[in-house]
């Protein structure tokens, strides 16, 4: 009997937040669903499921990526970082998360993981952004609660704290 089209399974090995995970996936499984449904990493949120809202942003090999627009089979051999890995193994928060808390940069919190992952990658490349640059960097992330003001403030705070922790050469 010929197999049903699309039912061929592929084995993937992915380094998720520093630990290797394996899965057997069908081609149409999205990375977001692999993270959430198979591996229980429900910190990555799915809003629009077609690449418009940015809530599902994770890092793939360090680059901010919409996990609803990548198939799980494509990340075989890649490094994936999600919001669960942001704070590290200790009890504290990541400095960006800390800034979000102190600035009240979230209300319902649905968009927050995607915004955090986007900003982590952005601030790594741009340690001294202007307010306008932060707004442009976040143009692919929708928040329907905050009006963005506190998010931008938190990002500026985190950038300043980052520069203090690691003085420019």
């Amino acid at each position, binding site marked *: 009997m010929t197999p049903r089209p699309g039912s061929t399974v592929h084995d993937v090995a992915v380094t998720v937040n520093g630990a290797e995970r394996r899965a057997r996936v069908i081609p149409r499984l999205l990375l977001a669903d692999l993270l959430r449904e198979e591996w229980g990493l429900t910190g990555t949120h799915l809003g629009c499921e077609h690449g418009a809202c940015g809530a599902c942003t994770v890092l793939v090999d360090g680059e901010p990526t919409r996990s609803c627009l990548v198939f799980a089979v494509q990340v075989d051999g890649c490094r994936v970082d999600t919001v669960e890995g942001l704070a590290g193994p200790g009890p504290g928060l990541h400095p960006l998360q800390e800034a979000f808390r102190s600035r009240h940069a979230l209300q319902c919190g649905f968009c927050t993981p995607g915004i955090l992952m986007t900003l982590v990658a952005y601030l790594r490349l741009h340690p001294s952004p202007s307010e306008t640059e932060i707004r442009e960097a976040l143009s*692919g992330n929708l928040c329907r609660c905050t009006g963005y003001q506190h998010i931008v403030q938190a990002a500026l705070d985190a950038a300043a704290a980052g520069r203090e922790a690691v003085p420019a050469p």
Partner: protein
Amino acid sequence: MRPAPFEYFAPRTVEEALDLLARHGDEAKLLAGGQSLVPMMNMRLVRPAVVVDLNRVAALGAMREDGGRLHLGALVRQHALERDGRVAAAAPLLAEAAPLIGHLQTRARGTIGGSLAHADPAAELPACMIALDAVFHLRSARGPRACSARDFFRGLLSTALEPDELLAGVEVPGAPAARAGHGFAEVARRHGDFALVGACAVLALDAAGVCRHARLVIFGAGDGPHLVRAAAAIDARADLHATAEYRRRVAAGIAARALQRAAARAEAA
């Protein structure tokens, strides 16, 4: 929203990819960055039986510059246009347009070849490639061929690519003269949105300061990038974002802005 089932192949070489295309033809879709294809698959606007993922074809991801000509592999990510100094030097128009292509996350994944082959009428890259007079390199199991950017785009989401062909890369010539300049301008509702209307221009002056080369391309207004040849009414479309009349009026102003920027740069060169 999840895509309909499909078979997945991840070839390692261009030849393997072309064999798969020859075998599956119309049934197959090439997957590059996936920033246009996957949303359409999630919404089931397209349901390919076979997806040929090009992301593991290393040969398509290369960029090189020689003698002022920039060779961009189809799999070069869009964010490389903003980050790579060779682009800023050889084709500054591309470096200027790049930050306006979608968002941070989509540029990290989206590719140059994918944007060009998708041929969205409001996309920045097709218009820039026409303004720069780029040459597109197409390949199929039948052999390679070259095509000018102007001949590549055939209207709404349609290109010169045959079902068994792939866009392997783009060759961007250097500046048309020593004294040359580029200009880019667009109007969008929010940063990263598709342009309602945009324009890009390349001008070159001779030693006496007389303009000897001028290319102006308007995009977002009609069904595809439009190389302006004479002062004529612009073919404009209406949708829920803007009326045709609005687009025509904005196009005139935006075109003037792109030309002024190009002229100022050429004069300063």
